[in-house]
C-alpha cells in the first residue's frame, strides 16, 4: 500500500499514485462538511473507487463554533480494492477551522505526514482572541510532521458568491476533485441532481464554487493523487447501515415498525416512516420503548410480524416485554443499533456492548435468537432472515447492529427483490377440532400458533406458565414442559446453522474471532498480517445465540484464540486484575463458557471503530511475544 510518485506534471506538480486514501473533512456544525464528504464519496464511487464514509457527528445540535467536540464532518476512505471498513488514520484533512482540526489531531486520527488543508482566515480574524487561538494552533502544528497548507477558502469563495459560509463546502469538493484527479463532470452531475427539483437557481453558484476550488488547488498545490479504480462490480447501492436495514424491513414483508426515537437507531425509522408507508405499512412512534415493544407484540400476535427498532437504553426498557414474546412464543424482531454504554453512555459513538444483555437480559429462562450483521449489505438481508426465523420458530429474534454500521456508508451489490422474501398472508383458516395452541412437538419444541380470526382457534395467550391449551399452569410439570420446549426450538434452529468459514488458513498460530461490524477491519488486519508472514486467521460469527456446530473444531486448529470486540474488558496487565476477577469481552465470555477454551480478548470502549492497523499491530505484538516467551 505504498504511495509512489508516478510522474511530474507540467506545472511541476507531483502526481502520486496510491491504492487507497483516507480524507477527513471537518467544520463547525451547519457549514456543510457532511454534505461535502457525502458528495465526494459518491463522486469517487461513480469514478470507480470502492468507498466507505463515516459521519462525524457532534453530541449537540448546534454546538459552540470553533471547538473540538463541536466538529462535524465526514471521513471518506477511497480505494482501488474492496473497502470494508473506515480504515486507519487520515492522510488528508480539510479543516474549516483550526479547533475542529485539533479535535481529530488529539484523538490521534491523522497519520504521520498527513496533508492538512486549513482555512486561513482565522489568523487575521478581527477578534484578537480567535487570531491568537489560530496562531497558537499553528505553533503546535509546526511540531508535527503534517504538511500544512493554509487555504483562503472564505476569501476565494467570496470572489464567486456573496455569503461564503454556506458555499465553502462546494469549494472543498472542487479542491478534492482536483487533488484526486476526478473528472469534474461527475461533480456537476451531483450538484444538478441535488438542486434540480427544488432550487434550480442554486446550481450555477454551486458549480462556480466547485470550479473555484478546483482551480485553486490546481494552481496552488504541488501534488495530486490518483487512486486507480476498483474492478467493476455491476450495479451497486450506496447506503448506510440504517437505510440498508430499513430497506430490508420492507423486503422482509414486515408491515409494522414500532419505535421510540433513540440515537443511533432512529434514522432507520426516519427512512421507514415514508418508505414503509408507501409500501402499505406503518411506522408507529409510541410514547416510550415499552409501548413500542408492546405495540409490535400486539401486531405480531395479530399476524403481522413486527419489528421494533431501538438502541441500548431502549432495549433495557423492553426487557420485560421481550420475555413475554419468548414465553408466549410470539414472533418478534427487535433491532438494537448499539451505541456506547452503559446507561445513556455515548449516544453517537460506536460500541458492541449489548451482546450479553441481549442474550441474558430478561429474568428467567429466555431462549431467543441473537444475530448480528457484519456489513452494510448484511443489514439488508438480516431483516429478511430475522422475520423468517421469528415466524418459523415462534421466537424473538434480536438483531444487533451498531453505530459503526448505522452511520457508515458504502456500496454493495444492488439486491434483486425475490418474492420468496415476502411474508406469507395471515392464516385465517379454521383450526381443526381439538388442536391446541401450544401443541409442542417433543422432538423440536415447535408448535403452530393460532391467529385471531381463525375459527376454532380461540384461546387466551398468557405470560404465565401455561399448558398446551394455553391455560394457566397449576401443576409443577407444566412449567418444566414449557421451558423444555421453548429451549428445544433453539436447539432445532441451531441444527440448521452451518459453521462459519475461516478467513485465512484453517490452522495456525492465532485465530481472531469477531462478531458484528468489526468484520471488515479484522479481515483487513488479518490479510495484512498474513502478507507479513504471520499465521493468523479470522472467524466471524453471525449467530451469537445459538452458535453453529463446528466452531470448537475450528478453534482447536489454532494455538491461540482470541476475540476482538468493541466492548469493555479488563486489562490483565493491571495489578489488581487476575484470572479470578478479570472481566472478559462479551463474545469471549460466551465462547469460554461453551467451549472451555482459554479464549483471550482484545477490546476497548473508545467509542470508535477499531482500526485495521491497530488490530494488525496487536497481532504482531502477540505473535512475537509468543515467540520470545
Amino acid at each position: 500500500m505504498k504511495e509512489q510518485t508516478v510522474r511530474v506534471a507540467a506545472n511541476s506538480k507531483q502526481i502520486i499514485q496510491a491504492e487507497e486514501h483516507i480524507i477527513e473533512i471537518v467544520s463547525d456544525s451547519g457549514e456543510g462538511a457532511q454534505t461535502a464528504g457525502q458528495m465526494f464519496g459518491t463522486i469517487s464511487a461513480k469514478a470507480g473507487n470502492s468507498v466507505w464514509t463515516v459521519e462525524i457527528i457532534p453530541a449537540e445540535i448546534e454546538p459552540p463554533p470553533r471547538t473540538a467536540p463541536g466538529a462535524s464532518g465526514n471521513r471518506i476512505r477511497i480505494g482501488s480494492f474492496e473497502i470494508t471498513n473506515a480504515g486507519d488514520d487520515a492522510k488528508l484533512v480539510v479543516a474549516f477551522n483550526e479547533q475542529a482540526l485539533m479535535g481529530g489531531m488529539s484523538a490521534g486520527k491523522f497519520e504521520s505526514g498527513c496533508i492538512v488543508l486549513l482555512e486561513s482566515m482565522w489568523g487575521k480574524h478581527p477578534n484578537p482572541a480567535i487570531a491568537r487561538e489560530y496562531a497558537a494552533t499553528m505553533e503546535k502544528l509546526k511540531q508535527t510532521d503534517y504538511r500544512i497548507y493554509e487555504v483562503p477558502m472564505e476569501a476565494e469563495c467570496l470572489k464567486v458568491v456573496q455569503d461564503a459560509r454556506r458555499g465553502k463546502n462546494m469549494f472543498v469538493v472542487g479542491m478534492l476533485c482536483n487533488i484526486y484527479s476526478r473528472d469534474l463532470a461527475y461533480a456537476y452531475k451531483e450538484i444538478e441532481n441535488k438542486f434540480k427539483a427544488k432550487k434550480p437557481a442554486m446550481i450555477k453558484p454551486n458549480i462556480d464554487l466547485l470550479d473555484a476550488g478546483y482551480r485553486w488547488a490546481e494552481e496552488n498545490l504541488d501534488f495530486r493523487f490518483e487512486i486507480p479504480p476498483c474492478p467493476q462490480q455491476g450495479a451497486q447501492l450506496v447506503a448506510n447501515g440504517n437505510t440498508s436495514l430499513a430497506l430490508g424491513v420492507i423486503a422482509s414483508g414486515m408491515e409494522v415498525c414500532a419505535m421510540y426515537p433513540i440515537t443511533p437507531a432512529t434514522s432507520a425509522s426516519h427512512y421507514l416512516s415514508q418508505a414503509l408507508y408507501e409500501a402499505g405499512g406503518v411506522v408507529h412512534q409510541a410514547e416510550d420503548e415499552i409501548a413500542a415493544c408492546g405495540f409490535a407484540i400486539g401486531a405480531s400476535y395479530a399476524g403481522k410480524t413486527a419489528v421494533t427498532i431501538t438502541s441500548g437504553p431502549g432495549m433495557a426498557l423492553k426487557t420485560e416485554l421481550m420475555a413475554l414474546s419468548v414465553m408466549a412464543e410470539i414472533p418478534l424482531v427487535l433491532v438494537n443499533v448499539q451505541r456506547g454504554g452503559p446507561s445513556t453512555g455515548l449516544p453517537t459513538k460506536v460500541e458492541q456492548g449489548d451482546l450479553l444483555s441481549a442474550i441474558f437480559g430478561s429474568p428467567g429462562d429466555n431462549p431467543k435468537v441473537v444475530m448480528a450483521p457484519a456489513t452494510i449489505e448484511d443489514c439488508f438481508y438480516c431483516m429478511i432472515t430475522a422475520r423468517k426465523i421469528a415466524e418459523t420458530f415462534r421466537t424473538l429474534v434480536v438483531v444487533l447492529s451498531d453505530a459503526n454500521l448505522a452511520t457508515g456508508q458504502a456500496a454493495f451489490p444492488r439486491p434483486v427483490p425475490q418474492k420468496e422474501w415476502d411474508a406469507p398472508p395471515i392464516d385465517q383458516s379454521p383450526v381443526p377440532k381439538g388442536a391446541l395452541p401450544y401443541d409442542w412437538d417433543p422432538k423440536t419444541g415447535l408448535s403452530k400458533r393460532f391467529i385471531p380470526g381463525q375459527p376454532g382457534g380461540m384461546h387466551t395467550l398468557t405470560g404465565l406458565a401455561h399448558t398446551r391449551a394455553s391455560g394457566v399452569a397449576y401443576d409443577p410439570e407444566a412449567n418444566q414442559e414449557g421451558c423444555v420446549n421453548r429451549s428445544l426450538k433453539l436447539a432445532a434452529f441451531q441444527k440448521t446453522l452451518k459453521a462459519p468459514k475461516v478467513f485465512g488458513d484453517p490452522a495456525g498460530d492465532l485465530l481472531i474471532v469477531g462478531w458484528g461490524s468489526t468484520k471488515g477491519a479484522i479481515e483487513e488486519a488479518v490479510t495484512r498480517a498474513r502478507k507479513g508472514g504471520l499465521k493468523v486467521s479470522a472467524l466471524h460469527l453471525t449467530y451469537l445465540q445459538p452458535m453453529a456446530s463446528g466452531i470448537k473444531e475450528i478453534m482447536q486448529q489454532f494455538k491461540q484464540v482470541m476475540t476482538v470486540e468493541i466492548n469493555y474488558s479488563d486489562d490483565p496487565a493491571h495489578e489488581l486484575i487476575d484470572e479470578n476477577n478479570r472481566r472478559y469481552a462479551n463474545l469471549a465470555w460466551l465462547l469460554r463458557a461453551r467451549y472451555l477454551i482459554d479464549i483471550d480478548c482484545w477490546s476497548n470502549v473508545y467509542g470508535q471503530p477499531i482500526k485495521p492497523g491497530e488490530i494488525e499491530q496487536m497481532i504482531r505484538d502477540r505473535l512475537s511475544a509468543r515467540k520470545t516467551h
Partner: protein
Amino acid sequence: MFGLNDNCSIDQDQEYLTLEDYQGRVSRWCAGCGDNGILGATQRLCRDEQLPREKTVFVSGIGCAARFPHYMNTYGFHGLHGRALPIAQGIKMRRPDLHVFVNMGDGDCCSIGTAHWIHALRANMDLVVMLHDNGIYGLTKNQASPTTPTGLKTNTTPRGTMLRALNPLTVTLGVTNASFVAQVGEWIPDLLFEVLKQAFHHKGLSFVRILQRCPHFTPELYNALLTNPDNIVLLTHEKGMQIGETTAKIYKRQEHHDPSDLNRARELAEMSDRVPMGILYRNEEIGRYNEISRSGILPTWERRAEVLESAFDRFGIQASAAE
C-alpha cells in the same frame, strides 16, 4: 382485507351464538367478586351483537380483573401488568376486522399503566376499554392503588393511605382526544350493559370506569352507593343514555347532561359529594389513529418490490465514465 381468508364467514353467520358460546374457562374469582358481573354483561353484549368469537379479542394486563380473557370463549391476550393498551393498539392497528376489548384493574391502568392510558386515549383507536376499579390491588393481596380512598388501611399503608384518591374520570377528561368517557357500577346490570353497548358502538376509544366490588379486600368501598342510590347521579340525555323505567325509579337523582359538553363533564367528574353514572362525554368527530394513519395502499409484494426498486434506483450507482 389484508389477504385475509374470508371463506368461513358463511358458516359462522348461520349459527346463532348463545351466552354459553361466549363462556370460556370457569372463573376463579372470589365469591361475590364484581368481576363476575362485568363478565356476564360482556358476554351478553357479545351475544346480542353476535360477535364472531374468532374475530373478538380481549386484552388484559395482570391482576384479578386481568384474568377476564380466560373466561371468555374468544381470543384473549393476558399480557403484562400495565401493558394491555399498547398490545391492544398493536392488535387493532392492522386488523380493523377484529373487535378489541381491554380489561384492566385500577393498578394496571392507573398506576403502572398510566402512560399508556393517557396515550391510548389520545390515539383514540377503536377499542372498548374497561377499568375494573376496586380501589385496591387484589391479586397481590391488598396494597393501595391510586384509587384507594384516603385513609384506607392496606398492607402497604398500615396507617391508612395519605393521598386523595386519583380520579380516573378527571384524568381521562383532561386528555386531548378522549372521545368517550363513562362510569357505571357493576352492581347495576342494566346500566352496565347499556353503557357497554354504547361504548361498543362508539367509534373511537371508549373508556368505561366500572366501579367494581372486591368483597375480599375492599368490601365497604361502595357501600355508600349501594345503600343509598341517592349518592348516584344518573346522566341521561337524548344524545346519551336513555334509562329504563325500573332503573329510573331506583336512581332518582338524574341530570340531563349533553355528553358533548366537555366543561360540564369535567365538573360532573369532579363532584365530591355524589357519583355520576352514565356517559359523561362523547365525541364521534375525533379521528382514530388506526384510520387516519392508513395510506390506503395495499401492502402487496408487488407494491413492496416497487418501493424497493425505486429506492435502489435512488441509492444506486454504477461505476461509469462521467457522461
